[in-house]
């Protein structure tokens, strides 16, 4: 009941600030941009006009799988960035302005406060991701060939858990910092570090959640879900839950001056 109250208020917040409009649109752009450029690249080069007479441009058309991976890879970089930016002030802004003081003077449970905010943001992100990937999939199938819709949907669901991990990292920094900018910086820094560690030790830590999009890529080629994808997604869920628990703990300890 209290949880739903906070969840609904957060959804209304996202709606009033037009996040329900611009986040899906931006995500769609990310998902569509690369496959489209790849497809039209030869035409673009030709019309550029400075190609020497007689030169033949021979760029192999990407396969369906490759094109779909392009969709994901843009979301993987820019999508994550947007996710961090729209959630950097989720709690930290309330802490710094003082709204937090009014809200927490009511018998609000810290766990409700954190998880309701988290879930509302996850709802926005998940819907945006799914809409964006479906649009990307539509163009890919039109331009490059067939790809089963169920395969796209399955991979989108796996992919959402990757964003869940990102958001829970942002929540941790949110629960003890009062500067949204610093929250964003530290969150992105953490993601970069995790990526670096994963790519250095990628033979050892094959279960790293940072590899989820890579495994989704192989799924497009092989058509079968590898156990590593299950593993890394499972790890992502476990770490996310631990991080959420940590944010609740940190927020409780928070003293405002």
């Amino acid at each position, binding site marked *: 009941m209290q949880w739903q109250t906070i969840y609904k208020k957060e959804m209304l917040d996202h709606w009033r600030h037009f996040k329900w409009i611009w986040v899906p649109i931006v995500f769609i752009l990310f998902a569509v941009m690369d496959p489209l450029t790849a497809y039209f690249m030869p035409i673009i080069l030709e019309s550029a006009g400075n190609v020497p007479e007689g030169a033949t441009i021979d760029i192999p058309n990407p396969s369906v799988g490759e094109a779909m991976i392009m969709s994901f890879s843009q979301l993987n970089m820019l999508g994550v960035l947007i996710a961090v930016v729209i959630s950097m002030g989720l709690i930290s802004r309330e802490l710094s302005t003082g709204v937090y003081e009014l809200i927490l*003077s*009511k018998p609000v449970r810290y766990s409700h406060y954190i998880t309701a905010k988290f879930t509302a943001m996850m709802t926005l992100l998940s819907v945006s991701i799914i809409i964006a990937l479906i649009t990307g999939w539509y163009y890919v199938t039109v331009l490059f060939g067939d790809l089963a819709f169920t395969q796209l949907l399955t991979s989108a669901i796996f992919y959402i858990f990757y964003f869940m991990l990102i958001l829970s990292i942002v929540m941790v920094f949110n629960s003890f910092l009062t500067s949204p900018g610093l929250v964003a910086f530290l969150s992105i820094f953490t993601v970069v570090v995790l990526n670096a560690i994963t790519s250095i030790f990628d033979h050892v830590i094959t279960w790293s959640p940072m590899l989820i999009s890579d495994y989704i890529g192989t799924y497009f080629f092989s058509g079968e879900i590898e156990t590593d994808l299950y593993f890394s997604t499972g790890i992502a869920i476990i770490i996310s839950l631990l991080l959420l628990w940590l944010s609740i703990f940190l927020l409780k300890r928070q003293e405002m001056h």
Partner: protein
Amino acid sequence: MSIMSANHLTKIFQNHTVVDDLSFTLETGKCVALLGPNGAGKTTTLRMLAGFIKPSQGNIQFDEEQFTKDIRHYVGYLPQYPVFHNWMTGEEFLIYVGQLAYLSKNDAKTKAQELLDLVRLGDDKQKRIGKYSGGMKQRLGIAQALMHDPQLIILDEPVSSLDPIGRREVLNLIRELKKDATILFSTHILNDAEEVSDDILLLNHGKLLKQGAIHEIHSQQETKTIYLAFQDEPKFIEERLKEINSVFNIKRENAGFAITVHDVNEARSQLLEVIQSEGWNLTKFEVLTSSLEDIFIKAVTE
């Protein structure tokens, strides 16, 4: 019966003692003013009571029989500078905090309407809070503190940022609320404290200087003031008055004399005797009770 007691409450921020060994109890149904100059530790004390910060030493005890759940169920709190979600309307915000305090949606709506009328925001309830003026936000802040019918209302400087009309309204409101709840409010405006509160707690540099009922504090004062005025000011009056043994100090004030005395009864008869025998044309004789301001300044500067 006491609703709450603070025992040896101390708060230290980075080696700086903001609140120093504070002990007091709040009696049920009383309106208590927490007085003190700026930086005395009033806000820190209130925030400890509301549970936002933990005391470094000491503790706060609420009556356990009365309060079985999380203390926030029973406490309404208004911070010094209330901040809201500016994108919400006043009505939406009240319903939101009401539901956070486990009111049903319908109850929250009814209560919100009632409080919006009480704080005269009924006409502006559909406006975004971002468009509210400072005074309107302050009044909305009071309304949100009352949404769940708290038994203890803690108000941090409820009237300081208001214009005289708003101030009057809030003071009347506090007087109204006194009937059903215990109120603790901080202020540095002494008249306000004198007007609505039963008890005062006087704080300076984090220490409790005085506490008790206002009338008791008045009667505790060792010196009293008698004010005298004459039609034509007699010659050598100051010299003559100084000879009276119960007179402690003489100060010219307006057209007369403010005479500080130790014992009012003794001084009264001695003064009148002198005035009678000298044949001075007395136009005004008044025994002044020292105002809270005098007590405040005396206690703070001592």
